[in-house]
């Protein structure tokens, strides 16, 4: 008696390279057979979906699967609608005329889409300048975070050096530390270094280890790479740097993608640090720029929404491009301690 399996359940957990999947790496999209097995038990008394006894007897598995699926899809679709509606609401507002935005009662429909809202919103403030600034902050910060976190992760995973275990405990301890404690000393340090109103406070810390969490992620992944690869390279006369650069990094694409995307998103959204350190309007990243847009011209809701949509655009694109690796790498963060 074989339960109906869905076609979608392909081996999506693929992409694992040369058996170096760390624990939990392939869990996210991997199909699990158990849900298909569970189908018949929707008919057990006390279950949320009750089917009359006689019906159970006569119904084929396929038929019951159909009802279950229908219910699942209904719930999923309504939940998805609930998740999407704020976005949909903002999207419609972004192409409305201003008088239509402020019409009572509000409605989701747009009488005449005003596509010109987008160029208007973008030209209203030095919006493109803000976007460029954000990129100027994000790119070096992400590069530093990925590079130095992977270096430290490699040191913790594969190198033997005195005090490694102690330093590792220190690393874990710093994860518990709330950033607010460092807020004021950092400000004072950067102020005395003359870094206030430059991008240095936003970029330089990323080049110094890139955060305990990312180091931990790299360490977990590097630990799972087989010893054989490393030994073969060593016999060929490769140095430690070459082993790290030529063997470990190219094999760590899921973590690289995960850390890269997470770091990029975090820096793109960063609000507090620019708020504290940047005072010149022309240096603002998009987050501060949008905030200022709201406080200056917040009543132009349609333009504000258009600007918000544009600001979110790169994140959405990045997410879809990196999603395959990203979701797998994200799971590394939660499953294994």
């Amino acid at each position, binding site marked *: 008696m074989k339960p109906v399996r869905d076609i979608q359940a392909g081996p999506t957990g693929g992409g694992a390279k040369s058996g170096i999947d760390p624990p939990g790496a392939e869990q996210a999209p991997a199909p699990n057979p158990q849900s298909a097995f569970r189908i018949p038990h929707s008919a057990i008394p006390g279950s949320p979906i009750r089917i009359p006894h006689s019906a159970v007897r006569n119904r084929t598995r396929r038929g019951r699967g159909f009802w279950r699926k229908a219910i699942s899809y209904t719930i999923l679709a309504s939940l998805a609608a609930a998740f999407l509606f704020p976005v949909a609401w903002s999207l419609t507002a972004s192409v409305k005329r201003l008088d239509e935005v402020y019409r009572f009662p509000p409605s989701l429909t747009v009488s005449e889409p005003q596509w010109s809202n987008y160029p208007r919103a973008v030209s209203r403030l030095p919006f493109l300048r803000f976007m460029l600034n954000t990129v100027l902050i994000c790119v070096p910060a992400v590069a530093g975070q990925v590079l130095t976190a992977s270096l430290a992760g490699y040191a913790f995973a594969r190198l033997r050096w005195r005090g490694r275990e102690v330093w590792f405990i220190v690393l874990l301890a710093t994860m518990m530390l709330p950033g607010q404690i460092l807020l004021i000393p950092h400000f004072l340090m950067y102020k005395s270094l003359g870094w206030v109103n430059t991008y240095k406070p936003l970029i330089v810390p990323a080049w110094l280890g890139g955060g305990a969490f990312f*180091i931990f992620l790299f360490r977990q992944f590097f630990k799972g790479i087989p010893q054989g690869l490393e030994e073969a390279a060593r016999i060929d006369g490769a140095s430690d740097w070459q082993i790290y650069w030529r063997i470990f990094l190219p094999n760590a694409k899921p973590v690289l993608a995960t850390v890269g995307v997470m770091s990029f998103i975090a820096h793109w959204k960063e609000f507090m640090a620019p708020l504290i350190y940047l005072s010149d309007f022309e240096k603002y990243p998009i987050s501060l720029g949008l905030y200022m847009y709201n406080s200056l011209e917040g009543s132009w809701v349609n333009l504000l929404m258009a600007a918000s949509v544009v600001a979110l655009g790169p994140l959405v694109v990045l997410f879809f491009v990196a999603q395959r690796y990203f979701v797998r790498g994200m799971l590394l963060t939660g499953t294994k301690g």
Partner: protein
Amino acid sequence: MTPRQNTIGYLFAAPWLVGLLGFTLFPIVVSLLLSFCQWSGINLEFYRPGRKVAPDEEGKYIRWVGTANYRRALGGLADGAKEDFRPPRRSASGAGAARADVPPDKNVWTALKNTAYYSFLAVPLGLCVALATAMLLNQQLRGIGLFRTVFYMPHILGGVATIMMWMWVFNPTYGLFNAMLRAAARAPQQLGLLGASWQPPDWLYGQTWSKPALVIMSLWGTGAAMLIFLAALQNVPEQLYEAARVDGAGRWRQFRHVTLPQITPALFFNLVMGIIGSFQVFDTAYIMTGGEGGVNKSLLFYVLYIYQKAFHDFEFGYASALAWVLFAVILAFTLLLVRSSRWWVYYEGERR
């Protein structure tokens, strides 16, 4: 371990070590010392009692004030709590705050209360939403990947732009949320269950509904927790369900006695992360209230208050002390959870 290996190890870890010493450990010491000082951050000079300084200039020099900052914060905490709860047994004279030589700062209590209110509502509800969506997504259905993306996406988006969107959603007059509430209220109004003058909440424009609005918004971004639950659900061994079914367990009992115990590690992880994260809310509160803290300080969250004290009032010493109080609160909750975990978190290894 040869000296050469040692050097290489330290070289690889060097960027992190520099960051640790210069940008973490050193600032921690500075922060701790500052929390016992009074200083506006202007003159990097120590205050000497003998020297002639105009009285209003005193705060500009670093001045050791002992535990005054902490007494101010904790005294305010105690006073605020007393006003709210009015403990009948103890009279006010017995409390330490009454004897304090520094005026207690009741805003600390307001900020901590707001933060706890938000945290204790947003975290459990968020876990429920995340678990429910994860269970829905843990099915073999065509197009399930699309739904996963939809539920996970808001977590990626976040930031100022989405906060702008939500502010517009919550607009009391023109927002979508109240439009839907008005539509939903029409039937009860016609039946007379609801007065004709009933108005939907004013959300961010009032003090009662501003925090629930933020909670609703936070539910939207539970994608990270959902993903972790999803992974945990997929790790539950199928044999356990089969065994439960043989014993005649229904779906609820399977969930209660198989699924739930098996995913407690994920639940624990999400709970700890959720508490830590929600105690540090800043962006939303700052952006929605323009840094002010909202109507009647209803959105004055703790980190926002630290920010105000540090970068508006330039009380660097006091703000440092506030940060350490926050650290103590977060640490206490985390330890409490870790301690309790042995009663309710199930770890695979223990069985063997």
